[in-house]
């Protein structure tokens, strides 16, 4: 019975609302009338027709939306019962005692039943809706939980990776320092021929490159290890000046000119990290441009940002490098090649540090052909927190 009702409801759902309800009502009423007529002819018991109509009204209230059709049907049913199936047949009569009572009670029963059915139907629909909501909520919750676990796992993995990187870098620093230092002492002590001195120089310069790389790796772990960088207000030209001194110490052949900004630029930053960025960009220019002279480090203000710009007179940047910097992805080893060993790491480190400070790193070829690297840093933090720094 339930499945039959269900199937008929699916069929009926195909019709548009009002038309469908009307059709259902007319059809069921007609069926009840035929049924009563059939019963009247065969059994001769007149009162059965009322029950047949009540059944039709119940079905109508179940299959149509709202009270309207069922109420109409119960009134029509009351009239029809009286008119067709009660003595005198084929006329409306309230003369016989009990007829009005029978008719009114039939209408009343129909109304009550149809009210109950409609309520039941609404409740059933609500229950279904509630269940659907609950299931959706449950699924959402489940998905959220899974995603959260994934993120946590990824974060844990990241932390572990960072810790290993930090530990390895720290441990590399000491032996590299002593390799570079020992080579320097041997170079100073004299009494060696030219070829030995060249080998010692190679040892020292390679150890120094590795030290720079280790410093870069440590900077990266310093950004990733903490949720937020510790910023304090620094005068940009002091940081830039220090970077120039450091690069000049490592590459005595380098010629770098620092051009100061007109006004004093106080920038919230981690000074060690920004110094690292400027060092990397300068080292890039010294080692990879093909011309270590005429490098210009320019500081200036652009709107609410402080811009640091490194320009060289070298061979300029290849489209691959420009594209990689623009897209903010690391240089692949195939494009950087052997000639620019270490450039990839240096630039990715610059990119991560600048991004972590809320700035943007750009690269282009200057009008006279050399490479130009430029990054900006916001002059103000979103929240004015720098005053809390000791």
């Amino acid at each position, binding site marked *: 019975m339930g499945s039959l009702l269900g199937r008929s409801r699916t069929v009926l759902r195909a019709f548009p609302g009002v038309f469908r309800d009307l059709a259902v009502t007319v059809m069921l009423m007609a069926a009840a009338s035929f049924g009563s007529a059939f019963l009247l002819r065969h059994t001769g018991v007149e009162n059965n027709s009322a029950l047949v109509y009540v059944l039709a009204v119940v079905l109508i209230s179940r299959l149509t939306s709202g009270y309207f059709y069922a109420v109409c049907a119960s009134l029509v049913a009351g009239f029809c019962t009286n008119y067709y199936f009660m003595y005198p047949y084929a006329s409306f009569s309230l003369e016989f005692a009990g007829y009005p009572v029978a008719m009114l009670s039939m209408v009343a029963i129909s109304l009550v039943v149809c009210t109950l059915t409609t309520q039941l139907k609404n409740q059933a629909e609500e229950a279904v809706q509630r269940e659907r909501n609950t299931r959706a909520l449950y699924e959402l919750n489940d998905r959220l939980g899974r995603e959260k676990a994934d993120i946590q796992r990824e974060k844990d993995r990241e932390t572990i990776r960072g810790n290993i990187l930090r530990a390895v870098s720290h441990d590399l620093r000491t032996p590299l320092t002593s390799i*570079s230092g*020992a080579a320097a*002492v041997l170079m100073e002590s004299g009494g060696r021929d030219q070829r030995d001195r060249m080998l010692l120089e190679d040892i020292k310069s390679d150890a120094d490159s590795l030290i720079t790389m280790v410093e870069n790796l440590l900077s990266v772990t310093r950004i990733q290890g903490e949720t937020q960088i510790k910023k304090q207000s620094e005068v940009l030209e*002091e940081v830039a*000046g220090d970077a120039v001194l450091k690069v000049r110490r490592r590459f005595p052949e380098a010629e770098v000119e620092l051009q100061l900004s007109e006004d004093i630029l106080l920038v919230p930053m981690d*000074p*060690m990290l920004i110094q690292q960025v400027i060092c990397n960009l300068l080292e890039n220019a010294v080692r990879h441009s093909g011309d270590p002279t005429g490098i210009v480090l320019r500081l200036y203000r652009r709107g609410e940002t402080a811009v640091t710009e490194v320009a060289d007179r070298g061979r300029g940047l290849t489209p691959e490098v420009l594209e990689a910097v623009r897209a903010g992805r690391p240089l692949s080893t195939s494009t950087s090649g052997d000639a620019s060993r270490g450039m990839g790491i240096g630039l990715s480190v610059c990119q991560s540090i600048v991004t972590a400070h809320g700035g943007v790193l750009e690269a282009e070829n200057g009008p006279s052909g050399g490479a130009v690297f430029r990054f900006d840093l916001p002059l103000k933090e979103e929240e004015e927190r720098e005053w809390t720094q000791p």
Partner: protein
Amino acid sequence: MDAALILVVEDERTISNFICRALVSAGYKALPAATGGEAITLFFSHRPDLVLLDLGLPDMDGLEVLQQVASDPQRETPVIILSARDRESEKVKALDLGADDYIVKPFGVPEVLARIRTTLRHAERVRSATHGEKKLSYRVKDLTVDTARHQVFVGEKEIHLTQNEFKILELLCLHAGKVLTYDFIMKEVWGPYTTGGNQILRVNMANIRRKLGENPSEPKYVLTELGIGYRLLEEG
């Protein structure tokens, strides 16, 4: 004068080795110590002229060794700290505890030797008669700071500084060659109860540099010690 004796407190044997060798090549006598305990024993038995102190020691905190050395009542022995680049607060603490200078790890030999020379000379000057007294005027290269008349000259040209700018420069001159932390300068110039950041000092310093015509990438007078403070460069 005898060759200066330098106590090298460093637990990494390879680093200690090359530093000692470099010191001996440069004409100093070197005394290695691998632990804090050994360092303190050797310090009081050998009376070195200078201590090179690594802060990361296996048996105790390097700052503790520093305190013991600094509290020696008989004489002031200069201490140079060896510390990693990314540990500014540690360096600042050591300087405030009385260390004379610091060298950032990883360091090169020429840097170590230069710092040792400067610090020994500075200590020598402190021991001589002028110790702690304000001089009437200071000269650094072509910069003259006349404290009596509150005048500053670069060559023959007079430079007009504000009162605070002059105080900062005077303070740096008084401790020429030594790193002065931001905190120290703030307290000396703006008084012991200053609060808030040191931006005011930084801006003043940038102005002093502009007035003296100095570019931070070619420092003639004042050197920036990033994240730590400033130092007045001495002759030579």
